[in-house]
């Protein structure tokens, strides 16, 4: 482990051994822009399923509903039933934690306040005896990092000790996962061995605010290879919203509903021109939608009747039938529902991730960013990284994403290299899982963590330099 971190131990060794003791309990907080993934890391190494059962997802937002109620954090999932015209305020802006006023409120509600934080998996009763593992996006501004240090240390006082992974960005934590089984490698993980990160892993993290490519070498990011595409799930939802609003109903205020539409209907096309042609022809002929047709109907949710939105095959005669009203023999239920007809919207929207040029953006698509990232690294590493591409983040769940990425990457990568692209088993909570596995490796953890005493002694500037690996 010839890393920058190894320069720290001589200094630490001169200090009393006690100060490097970090608390046993580790609270892992993956502070995503859309949702916080939080929970205690299991004390003992356990299976992935057992570990993930301790992880719960909390919306990272303040929601203002139509009737002007403001709902915070964990209560959003339980207390909001009417999502029409719901407004969001998110403390994480462009992937980076900016607004601490809102974030503090969400954290307090969800993790610290004994009245509201009922879930014992995510309740931090005594921060003083807890180690915090907090993730952040790559290339965070130093000012924001210092703010995070100061808030975590001085406001909540994650007392005994704390670890803010400055050098360990969210994507890096994925390297701690068991990726050998994922890639179909026949090595069997030795349950007795110390948990160690993967040697070479190229993490593609396509989240809510942006998509990043991070080459991770033995658990540490190669900073010069990190690249970011400024398109994430938020942009896809907004783009879909815009298109649908222009072509059908005005949905510009229905962010939540359009996000649901996106999640259920959108897919990445592996034959863009062909799908485009098929959709157009289906629209011309107005024939009954066959099973494999691209065009679908999405029935919008009806909060008054308590019905959720759902997708079904397109019925081109539905509109005409509705005009006839009750004469056509449709039930009142069908007559009252609102339907969005989705044709090429289904695949032109996620297409932005692969050709941002379609909206005039001057950035390359995801496969080419991977090559851009690699071109900044020594050529000896290219083969190793191309053979270990791991995709995490919510956009990885869009059907067809993985196939398209692998195909395009194969086309532009050097012919001698093996290209293997895999999706994490749980792409959304993959970073959390990796962090919980890191937490089991006490030695590594104490190497990168700083304790509260150290913070009080040296201050936040020192903490920043320590995480940057320069102290």
């Amino acid at each position: 482990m010839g890393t920058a971190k190894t320069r720290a131990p001589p200094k630490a060794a001169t200090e009393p051994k006690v100060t490097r003791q970090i608390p046993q309990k580790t609270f892992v907080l993956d502070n995503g822009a859309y949702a916080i993934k939080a929970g205690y890391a299991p004390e003992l190494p356990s299976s992935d399923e057992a570990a993930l059962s301790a992880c719960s997802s909390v919306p990272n937002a303040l929601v203002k509903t139509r009737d002007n109620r403001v709902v915070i954090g964990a209560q959003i999932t339980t207390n909001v039933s009417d999502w029409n015209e719901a407004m969001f305020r998110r403390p994480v802006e462009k992937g980076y934690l900016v607004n601490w006023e809102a974030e503090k409120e969400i954290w307090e509600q969800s993790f610290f306040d004994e009245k509201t934080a009922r879930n014992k998996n995510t309740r931090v009763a005594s921060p003083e005896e807890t180690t915090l593992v907090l993730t952040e996006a790559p290339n965070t501004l130093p000012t924001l990092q210092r703010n995070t240090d100061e808030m975590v240390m001085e406001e909540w006082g994650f007392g005994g000790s704390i670890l803010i992974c400055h050098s360990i960005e969210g994507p890096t934590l994925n390297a701690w996962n068991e990726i050998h089984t994922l890639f179909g490698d026949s090595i069997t993980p030795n349950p007795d061995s110390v948990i160690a990160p993967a040697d070479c892993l190229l993490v593609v993290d396509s989240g809510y605010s942006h998509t990043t490519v991070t080459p991770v070498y033995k658990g540490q990011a190669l900073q010069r290879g990190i690249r970011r595409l400024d398109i994430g799930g938020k942009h896809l939802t907004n783009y879909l919203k815009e298109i649908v609003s222009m072509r059908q109903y005005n949905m510009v205020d229905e962010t939540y509903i359009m996000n649901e539409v996106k999640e259920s209907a959108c897919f990445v096309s592996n034959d863009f021109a062909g799908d485009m042609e098929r959709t157009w022809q289906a629209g011309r002929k107005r024939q009954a939608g066959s099973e494999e047709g691209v065009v679908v109907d999405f029935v919008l949710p009806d909060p008054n009747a308590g019905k959720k939105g759902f997708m079904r095959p397109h019925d081109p005669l539905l509109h005409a039938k509705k005009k006839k009203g009750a004469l056509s023999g449709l039930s009142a239920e069908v007559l009252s529902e609102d339907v969005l007809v989705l044709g090429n919207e289904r695949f032109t929207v996620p297409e932005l991730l692969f050709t941002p040029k379609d909206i005039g953006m001057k950035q390359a698509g995801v496969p080419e960013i991977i090559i851009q990232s690699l071109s900044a690294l020594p050529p000896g590493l290219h083969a190793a990284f191309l053979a270990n591409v791991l995709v995490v983040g919510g956009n990885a769940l869009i059907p067809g994403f993985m196939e398209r990425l692998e195909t395009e990457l194969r086309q532009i990568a050097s012919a001698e290299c093996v290209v293997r692209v895999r999706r994490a088993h749980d792409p959304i909570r993959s970073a959390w899982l990796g962090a919980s596995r890191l937490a089991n490796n006490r030695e590594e953890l104490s190497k990168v963590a700083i304790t509260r005493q150290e913070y009080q002694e040296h201050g936040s500037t020192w903490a920043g330099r320590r995480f940057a690996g320069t102290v």
Partner: protein
Amino acid sequence: MFRVELLPDSSSVATPGYTYVADRGFNPAQAAMAPTLGRKRGIRDAGKGGDVSSRQANAIMRHLAELDRENQRDVQIPVPVKQAKEAGSRGTRAKTTSNVRRILQSQKTFRNHLDDEEAALAMGTGVGSGSGGGANVNAILQAKTGGAGGKTGKVAAAAGSGSSAAARRSSTPATASSSAARRKRPSAAAAATTTTATSTPTPAPSVSETADTHPEAETSPDNNNHNDEAADAEPKPKLIKTEHDNHPLLRSYAPSAPSDRIMQLLLAEPPLPYNAARAAPPSSSQPPRHFCCLCGYWGKIRCKTCHLRTCGLDCYKVHEDSRCGAFF
């Protein structure tokens, strides 16, 4: 010739008239846009010459800013005011420190923070030590890969020089240090080249690389998708040496994995600034695809008045009747 042009800015709302933008000196991209032939050529031929007009660039910027919003309307969602009783539930925790108060009351957006950061970088304070370190790594990478192929060294150099303006400013010390590194370590570079030279006759470099990165691949039964080198590399302990190993057709030209020292230097590099990590434009010069502004099918024809695309006469009629005339 005198003319007024609306330069692209990042504001999300359309303001009439003009905006103030920072003049950063001579910009070849904008200089290329200046009309040299006819007064209206720049407007008429927008999009044809590869570069978009400033008006289109503005529209694109505004569209991207709109896609980046959380809500369509600007809405203030205040944090609910807590009752005094609840506020007292801080319990055993210490009082709010001044740092915390400052952070909580800060209403800065990410844009503000980023501007501060850019200003600090322009002053040359931010990554002063970092760029030096990066240049050092570049020098070593160049020294190492220089013998094998100049291309990779160029890539690394391009990445390093393009990383930030601050790095470019310190180009003279960087080159000095690189030459110093070359002078100081001719033996190391020579040793590196000799090791590659000695090991290239056998497929040893690829062997060591695959063995380092995923040793499990060697025992996996389904590795038929691995390339020939990896397949050759399988019986690593007992390589059969033949006289054909030196044959130029059989030699493996796979680049060797970098040494530990280089990896340590790479790992110790400071993070790139926010703007330097942004993805570059695509390298392929494929023409942009156009879509019908109404139905989303291919935009085959262009409205002669407003330059929006439609797919055919059906959509064009709708466009002409209802939406045309909108200033692009």
